[in-house]
């Protein structure tokens, strides 16, 4: 029940409603759907009585009805109605949106909830404007009430589940389902039932935007998080005891645990005092290109200090064995604490790396404290690795953001398939091209032409492209085979030998202007990490210049 419209319009009982309808007919302008904002169930009941547009679409089936209730069920806005001007703006934007929705609607799309809503909003507009034209007196009251109800509806539509709005079947099953039932419910066969909305109209964040905004962000839970961290701090002495007894420790749970690790290192340091500082080696497993050998080598450095042998050996296993023999021979050597942040991060995730780390962990005098971020990290270790690691596990949920663990913007863009933005996009590529010799520019032009023509060949009929003018939905799949490009390049006198051709390509590789991958038959496929429009833009500029 909406407080804003409810007090003015007593529509809660069907009786009253009928009187309203009656007055509709008398007044001759359709405000029959005004109580719509009052309650969803009311709305579905009253709408069929409205004149004009909606009628032709027929009666609502039970599914629609349940849909409509679902749409409005999570409405949370209970604040007083906003000022008329703001409401009008919201109103207008809602109208704009409805119009767009109607325009964008596919022919084969089934008429359903969201469209109906859009139609209704549009219709409201028609009605009110009509009313304003004919009746100046009503004007004073009409927009206000009208808007009040609209103000309630529009944000409601957003606060609900817009992603379900186009669904005839809601992705959220009704009632409480057991986990497996829910899985099957959400994985029913059939085409994906999601809306065709896409992010083209939304300006995505750049790295700068992101860092600027996160720097300004004031965390509403900072106090609780600090308390949580403090709780974890209290178990430091327990961890120390576990180390002392020969266990290694693995921390899991949601949130970045780097800070906690750092604090533990500080704690260890202060416990031992500066006179006998403990040997602590910290590993950031999420660092790209980190190698196991460098980890082992650093530990050897921590043990031996200045007198490390000049040659450590190239294989990590050799370094590890050196470390083990050094630790064996030095009986007075204190324990080495190795703190590994994100032991399950992609660079360390490989089975071979985990096996080496397990051997490290099994070395006496090595105390390993590892953190794991992902939910399924236990799958990395089989029984013999688990045995070697000798872990005790502690839940250390911190809720701290993963700021250093990975590049947030990069992750999101790669999820959305917009990797190309990172290279500097169109501008970056053009900038590089300007500094390259004529030959290279020609080769890139050739590559662009080939790939764009492949777009045209293969993807005109592709219905997936309908939404965003064939944006980079699957650009990664489009590419030209290495041999073919070489052949074309020789035909065009761009490269006379394969050697030269490769040199040119290397330049592109270095600037990440092309992508290269092996397809299933083992052929090298070259692609361009740009969206199609961007490619066309680059080609245009290349041709014109």
């Amino acid at each position, binding site marked *: 029940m909406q407080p804003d419209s409810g007090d003015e319009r007593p529509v809660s009982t069907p009786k009253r409603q009928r009187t309203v309808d009656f007055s509709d007919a008398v007044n001759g302008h359709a405000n029959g759907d005004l109580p719509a904002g009052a309650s969803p169930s009311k709305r579905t009941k009253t709408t069929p009585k409205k004149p004009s547009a909606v009628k032709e679409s027929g009666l609502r089936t039970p599914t629609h009805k349940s849909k409509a209730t679902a749409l409005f069920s999570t409405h949370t806005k209970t604040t007083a109605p906003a000022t008329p001007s703001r409401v009008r703006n919201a109103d207008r934007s809602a109208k704009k949106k409805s119009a767009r929705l109607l325009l964008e609607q596919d022919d084969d799309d089934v008429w359903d909830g969201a469209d109906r809503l859009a139609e209704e909003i549009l219709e409201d507009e028609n009605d009110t404007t009509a009313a304003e034209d004919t009746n100046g007196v009503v004007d004073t009251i009409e927009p206000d009430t009208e808007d009040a109800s609209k103000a309630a509806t529009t944000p409601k539509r957003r606060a609900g589940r817009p992603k379900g709005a186009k669904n005839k079947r809601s992705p959220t099953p009704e009632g409480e389902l057991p986990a497996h039932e829910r899985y099957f419910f959400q994985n029913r066969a059939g085409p994906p039932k999601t*809306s065709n909305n896409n992010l083209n109209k939304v300006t995505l964040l750049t790295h700068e935007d992101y860092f600027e905004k*996160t720097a300004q962000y004031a965390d509403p839970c900072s106090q609780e998080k600090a308390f949580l961290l403090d709780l974890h701090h209290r178990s430091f002495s327990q961890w120390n005891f576990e180390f002392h007894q020969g266990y290694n420790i693995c921390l899991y749970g*949601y949130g970045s645990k780097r800070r906690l690790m750092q604090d533990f290192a500080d704690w260890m340091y202060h416990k031992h005092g500066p006179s006998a500082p403990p040997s602590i080696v*910290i590993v950031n497993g999420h660092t790209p290109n980190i190698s196991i050998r460098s980890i082992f080598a650093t530990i050897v450095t921590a043990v031996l200090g200045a007198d490390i042998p000049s040659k450590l050996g190239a294989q990590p296993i050799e370094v590890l064995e050196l470390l083990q023999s050094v630790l064996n021979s030095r009986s007075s050597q204190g324990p080495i604490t190795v703190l590994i942040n994100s032991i399950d991060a992609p660079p360390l995730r490989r089975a071979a790396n985990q096996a080496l780390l397990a051997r490290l962990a099994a070395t006496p005098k090595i105390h390993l404290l590892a953190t794991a971020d992902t939910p399924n990290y236990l799958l990395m270790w089989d029984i013999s690795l688990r045995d070697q690691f000798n872990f005790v596990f502690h839940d250390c949920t911190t809720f701290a953001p993963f700021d250093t663990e990975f590049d947030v913007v990069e992750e999101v863009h790669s999820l959305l398939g917009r990797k190309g933005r990172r290279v500097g996009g169109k501008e970056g590529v053009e900038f590089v091209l300007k500094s390259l010799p004529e030959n290279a520019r020609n080769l890139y032009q050739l590559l662009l032409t080939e790939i764009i023509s492949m777009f045209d060949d293969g993807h005109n009929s592709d219905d997936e492209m309908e939404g965003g003018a064939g944006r980079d939905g699957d650009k990664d799949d489009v590419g030209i085979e290495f041999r073919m490009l070489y052949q074309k390049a020789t035909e065009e006198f761009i490269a006379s030998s394969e050697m030269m051709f490769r040199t040119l390509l290397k330049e592109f590789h270095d600037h990440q202007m092309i992508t290269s991958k092996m397809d299933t038959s083992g052929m090298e496929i070259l692609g361009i990490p740009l969206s199609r429009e961007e490619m066309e833009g680059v080609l245009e500029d290349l041709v014109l210049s």
Partner: protein
Amino acid sequence: MDLETDIQATTKDGTNTQGVYIYRPANASKPHGERPSKRRKVQTDRKDQVIDSTPFVPLLNGDENETSVQLRYNAYQQLWSEQQAKIQEILDDVDSDVLDNVSSFVRSTSPQTYDGCIPTALVTVGSNVSSLGRLLAKLNNQLTTAEQGGVVVLESGDAPNLKTTLKNIIRAAIANTEGNDGYQNFLTDREGPRLLGYDLDLLGDYVKRKGLKKLVVAFRDSEAFDPNILTDLLSLLSSWLDRIPFSLLFGISTSVELFEGRLPRSSVALLRGKYFEIHGASNCVDRIYERLQAEPTGRFWIGRGITGVLFEKSNDFFQTPEAFSRTVKYAYMMHFFANPVSVLLSDEASKVQREPLCEAIRNLPSFRRFCEQLLDDDSAKQVRQLLEDNEFLFQQSLDCLRNGQQRMRNIFQAVKMIHTCLKNLNTSKSPTISALSIRALSGELLDSTFVDDVLKMLKTQDSSKLTDLFEITPQSLTDTAEFQKLLKDFEALTQVHQGKEPLRSEYDSLNSTVATTVVQQRVRLSKGKTKMSQQNIDYTKIIDRFHALLEGYFVETLVKPQDLPLHEAFLLDMRNPLKEVFSPRPRFAIERALASPFDYLISTSEKTDSRISAQQPATAVLYQLYLESGALVNVHDLWQAFYAVFESEQGDACDERMVMALFYRAVSELKVLGMLKTSRKKVDHAAKTAWVGL
């Protein structure tokens, strides 16, 4: 090198972005600011005096004094080192016959005895994966101390290709006796052209120089090796067999047939040898448990819950005996680290500081029950004294403790007796000692069928078996006067009895006859007693007496341990921390943190609302929206829903870009946690990859 750089790489928040570095305190002089560290500082200051000797911390709000902490730690050390020794004894003992077989095989065989084939030992380990490691270590010890050779252990990770495999074999073989430096010297200090690290000539030289007779190459996880590499390696090794005395040892987890099937015939033809079998781990685990719990000198016991966890684990999945004993060790650690009353177990408990400990004892639930019982027995004075006089309480607690410990020992003696009886009498379904212990520790053994079975079977025993039974009868029963009298009578009876046949009681089936009569076309069995000799009648009386005695003994002994006063000191029965520590549920933890963040973020204010709200962390908000979606998620709509959550709460103040930044953070986290992945089905869609609760 990186020592200089790590300081520069430190970012402003004090974290370091380098891949790996040696820790340097950010500011050595003062602990870095902020509240938690200050609080810790206070603790560390106080602890500093203690810390040198023990890793324990003062309990009871930090009021425990140094001596108590030290005593607690010593008690732990002493107790566990005893137990550790017992475990080690069992581990040494358990596979000793296999070790003997394998080592005599290795010593006795040579290529000559096997017509030029490589002598090969195939060891099936089954689930007992750690046993092979122990076996190889022992074998290596034997061989190296006798200076006959050594064992080179290869794991599948050591064999990515032939060259590396050979290099690893050579290095391991040389470093085994010479150490790492010795290996380096061996490589460099030899005349003639320098050989590459994977040249078997090196190994040949080494073998000649040391006069080795055996070089065992052990493949720990033979299934995981690449068969192609294995084939190449085998043919290479066999061609060097005249210069290097190789023996091979394969650890097999599946079966010998499968192992053979993976290799080509030509390789199999190069091998000849024997097959050894190591038995499963569960037997060993049971033995360890029995040694730890049922020793007549036991002082501390783990309770029903923990026993349950331990055996649940080793039944549900493979668990090595080492892992088992580590879990037990952790239980011991837990007890002494966190339970201040555990100091009573110390040998020098009298030295302990009375004040905070006595307060703690008074708060024990079992102490309260004890007092209530005393009150019921009209000993109000004693209760008053317990509550007021620390010294009296302390002495009483020590008495209680000793008494309780004795009761526990008796329980386990009884358990052992029942176990042996059942094993001797009824081989088909005799329960393990752990199963019996679980019942005993929860106080259910007395009412169980096991005790009934034992008592029932006792009646049918003849005199020779009864003698055996007397032998396994626990001492606490045999010491009683009644039992001694019974024993004397029994001996007198057997002295008199000279017949070949042992004495039988009237309950014995041999002493009853079954008569078959047909009554109204139905067969009716009727039992009739045969006439018994006077001796047998006397014997029956003895049996009856013993039966009554034993029944009384069981009733008295098999009490519920949780009813013993002060059981908190000598019995640990907390299931939970142990279970969480060794079988974590990380996925559940993360899902819970995201689905109901205020379970973790304990807040004082009024926002502990289960609904989605902007007060929750961004990722939690997004995760809850994500849960409602189908298998395919439209990121745009997800963003709209996410924004609406913030907009509806913050109204005008809502900064869209800020919310977008939070959205980015949340989406990226879900992606990294493996809950979302790129989908090519539709533009700007992501695929859902994790379903809650599955």
